[in-house]
């Protein structure tokens, strides 16, 4: 099967990007130094082609009622137009189908942005739920939209410089809020732990937007830097830190599940039935001796666990990981990770590791 390409594929290749197969998409992993790209986002501004992710528009009367049932987080938290909410979408058994962002645009119009590899599965799942519970609603995948994430302390200023007239429409956006600005949908969201925008753009306009941002001094960044940035920010990667086999309660996402309200939602009964036996925690490697990676075994007095993501943190200068460990392992504990046959000490902590350019962990 040939790889799918985003509308920016030619621009990446012209810029000398190293391309990889990412969930069936031909995507840039870096344009040179992954660490330089990482620092550009933490210190200045960088951008990512995230056109492989998909916007799904849900329209019709009763959209909120449907989402109140379909999502583990509660869309009743969305009161102001444009406001966004992070949520998991669960199976009946509580397994995570996907994590997503849902925007409240009007009572009859919500926009959901889902992961690339799960897009087809999510559409099929939602259409099945809709047929049963809300057949009057329409779900429209926006395949004609590309998506660019501009991230970093100066990302918004550079975006305004690159897109004349956009500042007036978007300067008042609060974190986790989006709005239509001309033919762009601009949201103050991201996956890096920095300020910035995620921008939905008509596919045919994507390359001119990208080039305008390059001219404004925004550093193109690949999936490599995206991974180290999101891990420093303590954000899960679907398919790696969680999937259908685990619940959000053992994936560090209990805060996104609204169990308190009386509403029912898909997966609620299953989550209520079992106390979590494990937890997803952050790890900081205390000494050198190697680099934390996914699928290294973790040894604690309460039993063994496993890293789900790991990397060298360019901001901290030490190795960090997310790991699923037995319940009861707590921040401040020191545990051991098997790294290429050696048992290395690591400190358990609560993510994030880095936010808004600042190191939040004690790197003793």
């Amino acid at each position, binding site marked *: 099967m040939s790889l799918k390409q985003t509308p920016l594929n030619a621009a990446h290749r012209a810029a000398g990007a190293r391309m990889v197969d990412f969930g069936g998409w031909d995507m840039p*992993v*870096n344009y040179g*130094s*992954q*660490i330089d790209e990482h620092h550009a986002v933490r210190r200045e501004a960088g951008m990512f082609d995230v056109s492989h992710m998909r916007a799904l528009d849900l329209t019709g009367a009763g959209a909120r009622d449907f989402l109140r049932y379909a999502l583990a987080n509660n869309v009743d938290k969305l009161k102001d137009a444009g406001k966004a909410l992070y949520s998991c979408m669960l199976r009946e058994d509580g397994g995570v189908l996907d994590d997503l962002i849902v925007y409240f645009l009007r009572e009859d119009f919500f926009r959901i942005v889902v992961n690339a590899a799960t897009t087809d599965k999510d559409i099929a799942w939602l259409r099945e739920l809709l047929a049963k519970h809300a057949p009057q609603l329409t779900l429209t995948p926006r395949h004609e939209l590309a998506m660019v994430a501009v991230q970093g302390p100066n990302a918004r200023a550079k975006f305004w410089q690159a897109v004349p007239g956009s500042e007036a429409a978007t300067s008042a956006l609060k974190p986790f809020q989006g709005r239509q600005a001309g033919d762009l949908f601009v949201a103050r969201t991201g996956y890096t732990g920095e300020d910035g925008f995620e921008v939905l753009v008509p596919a045919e306009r994507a390359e001119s937007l990208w080039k305008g941002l390059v001219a404004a001094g925004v550093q193109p960044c690949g999936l*490599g830097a995206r991974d*180290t940035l999101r891990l420093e920010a303590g954000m899960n990667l679907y398919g790696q830190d969680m999937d259908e086999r685990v619940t959000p309660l053992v994936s560090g996402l209990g805060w996104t599940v609204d169990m308190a309200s009386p509403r029912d939602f898909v997966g609620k009964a299953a989550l209520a039935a079992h106390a979590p036996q494990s937890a997803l925690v952050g790890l900081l490697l205390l000494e*050198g*001796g*190697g*680099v934390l*990676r996914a699928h290294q075994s973790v040894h604690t007095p309460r039993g063994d666990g496993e890293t789900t993501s790991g*990397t*060298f943190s*360019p901001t901290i200068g030490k*190795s960090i990981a997310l790991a699923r460990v037995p319940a009861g392992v707590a921040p401040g504990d020191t545990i051991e990770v098997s790294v*290429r046959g050696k048992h290395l000490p690591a400190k358990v902590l609560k993510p994030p590791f880095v936010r808004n350019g600042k190191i939040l962990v004690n790197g003793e």
Partner: protein
Amino acid sequence: MNVPKELKYADSHEWMRAESDGTVTIGITDHAQEALGDLVFIELPAVGRTLKAGEACAVVESVKAASDVYAPIAGEVVAANTEVTTAPETLNADAYVAWLFRIKPADSNALAGMLDAAAYEKLIA
């Protein structure tokens, strides 16, 4: 891709330089560092260790992946470059300056069987 003419190469992407005192300096090639990406951790064999040809004896880890470095020839480790372990990024800057370790070869003629620059260029083409 930078492949200096005066060096010898192994198909596992190490370079070798014969020194005037009979020892051989070993590193990884520009091609190898480029494929690995930004290096963040390097572990070298202890001085005094005796290596067999083809033995995994060092580790280079980048943000992306970990990779073994093999002893291309048999011998005793007589030096390890601790500058490169404290600053792994110098290997990305110049893979032929940032050597890894130096061997006293068991067979003084061991380099004769290694690839020359032209053969290595062909291998990575």
